[in-house]
């Protein structure tokens, strides 16, 4: 039984929404819908879409496993130089993705700082493989997760963690059962950002993992190639990517939130 929504908030909100959505409407209007079914049914598109979803999801998983603890460490650990660490974590955000890809090559490439040993000792080569795609996406997307989750952790009331400690819970148990459930909305937000960023990732992927259909050609790479030959197809492909991601997010988030 709250009052009507205030104009000072609703007006900018609606403008913001329009700003985000009208360009999409533009795309939808201009798209050559006739070719959509053909595109959707084409084997390459299916392959690229599947690869995109799998890689983005795996990358998100990697980010969750590594990034949530990292966020916790930054928010709660008593580290020296936390401020700088926090700023450093944002770096892959600012790095042009292609340069990020170059950086990954410099480290994990066959001749890279670490990559040469991976190759020599274990025969593992990461670039130009599906694993490479996952790594490139994770590298670019992880800061989104880390920073959102860290923000959520900072806003959370630490006294509940103290209460858990008085009940004999180790930091790990406290984290798992008290802290994490408490910041779930923040983790969900971070995961959405991370997944979406991974799904749209192009520059680092094509640089580090190359562009091999069926193996490293994700949807954004397919869009890039389509732009070379058939710009309309590129738009249709983008729309396919959008629809799928909106579908997945609309479906998943409400389930997560409710849970």
């Amino acid at each position, binding site marked *: 039984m709250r009052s009507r929504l205030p104009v000072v908030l609703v007006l900018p909100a609606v403008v913001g929404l329009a700003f985000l959505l009208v360009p999409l409407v533009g795309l939808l209007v201009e798209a050559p819908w006739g070719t959509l079914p053909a595109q959707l049914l084409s084997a390459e598109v299916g392959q690229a879409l599947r690869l995109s979803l799998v890689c983005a999801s795996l990358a998100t998983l990697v980010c969750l496993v590594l990034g949530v603890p990292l966020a916790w460490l930054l928010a709660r650990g008593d580290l020296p130089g936390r401020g700088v660490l926090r700023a450093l974590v944002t770096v892959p955000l600012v790095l042009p993705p292609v340069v990020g890809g170059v950086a990954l090559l410099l480290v994990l490439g066959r001749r890279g700082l670490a990559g040469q040993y991976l190759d020599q000792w274990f025969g593992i080569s990461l670039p130009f493989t599906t694993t490479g795609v996952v790594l490139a996406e994770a590298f670019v997307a992880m800061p989104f997760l880390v920073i959102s989750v860290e923000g959520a952790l900072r806003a959370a009331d630490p*006294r*509940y963690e*103290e*209460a*858990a*400690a*008085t*009940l*004999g*819970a*180790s*930091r790990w*148990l*406290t984290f798992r*059962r*008290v802290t994490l*459930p*408490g910041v*779930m909305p923040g983790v969900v937000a971070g995961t959405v950002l991370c997944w979406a960023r991974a799904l749209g990732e192009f520059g680092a992927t094509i640089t580090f993992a190359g562009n091999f259909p069926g193996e490293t050609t994700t949807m954004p790479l397919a869009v890039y190639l389509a732009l070379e030959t058939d710009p309309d197809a590129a738009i249709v492909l983008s729309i396919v990517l959008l629809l799928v991601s909106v579908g997945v997010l609309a479906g998943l988030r409400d389930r997560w939130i409710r849970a």
Partner: protein
Amino acid sequence: MTLQAELRVHRDGFTLELDLVVEQGEVVALLGPNGAGKTTALRALAGLLPGSRVTADGSSWDGLPTEKRPVGVVFQDYLLFATMSVLDNVAFGLRARGARKAEADAAALRWLTRVGLAEFAKARPRTLSGGQAQRVALARALATSPELLLLDEPLAALDASTRLRLRSELGRHLRDYPGHTLLITHDPLDAMVLADRLVIVENGRVVQQGTPREVVRQPRTDYVAHLVGLNFYRGVADGTEVRLDGGGTLTVAEPARGPVHVVFAPSAVSLFTERPAGSPRNTWRAVVAGVEQHAHTTRVDLDGSPAVFADVTTATVAELRLRPGDPLWVSLKATEIHTYAR
């Protein structure tokens, strides 16, 4: 096994310096005005604030982080975990200490039953009323049977009859309890009924301690006198005459000498519209400052020399038609007055 604590907390504007000893099986009630440092002391004991020293039976807790200390805490604002069910909240401590799920749940349910909330086992804490939440917090703290129980106003939100029931339940539990208990409360009755010893803190320091009976009979500060419901003055005795610091003189039955505290019960005070003749040795004029109707008596607040509280029967009130501003005569038998050295 004796628990000894030297609690030292410094904040700007507030310093806690509190030495506490709690014997095995003993229940110590910590009382004091708002902001005296009771909750701060509790947090220091639990290891949530640095800088204090605690030893239990000779072994020091100083290096121990909170989760390694065998404590159980009821926090003043409960701090129930909103994302778990009530049952999981209570079972949490047992699980954290290694119990299997089935065991922990069964024990938690037993505790919920003891606090009368078994039917809320599956509810979320947010959907509980204030008093229900407090009972869950109590069950959660008790469930782990800690060596040191820290209870911060654990009954404050309970309704009168639940409080009565839970107080005697808690009393029974604590009587057989081998650990140490520190109970923070504002209710003298809770302290009286549950505690073996009262420690009264004001401004971060102990001002009085002793058994409930000692404290009730010989309060040493205004706060304690208020707490136990006595009229309280400081004065200088010379034989059976006590000259009060705040003005006025009282005649007492037992002679004394030097600085004393003077106490008497509000129910010992009689009120008259005319100067009474007869035995009471103390009679003085006063003006009604306020009248409060209690359940079975009426409390009258009187300005005079000295100012005094009087508890009178409802019949007396009706007869005297008391109103603020009315002048009255106060009378008090010398034998009702108790003095003791400052």
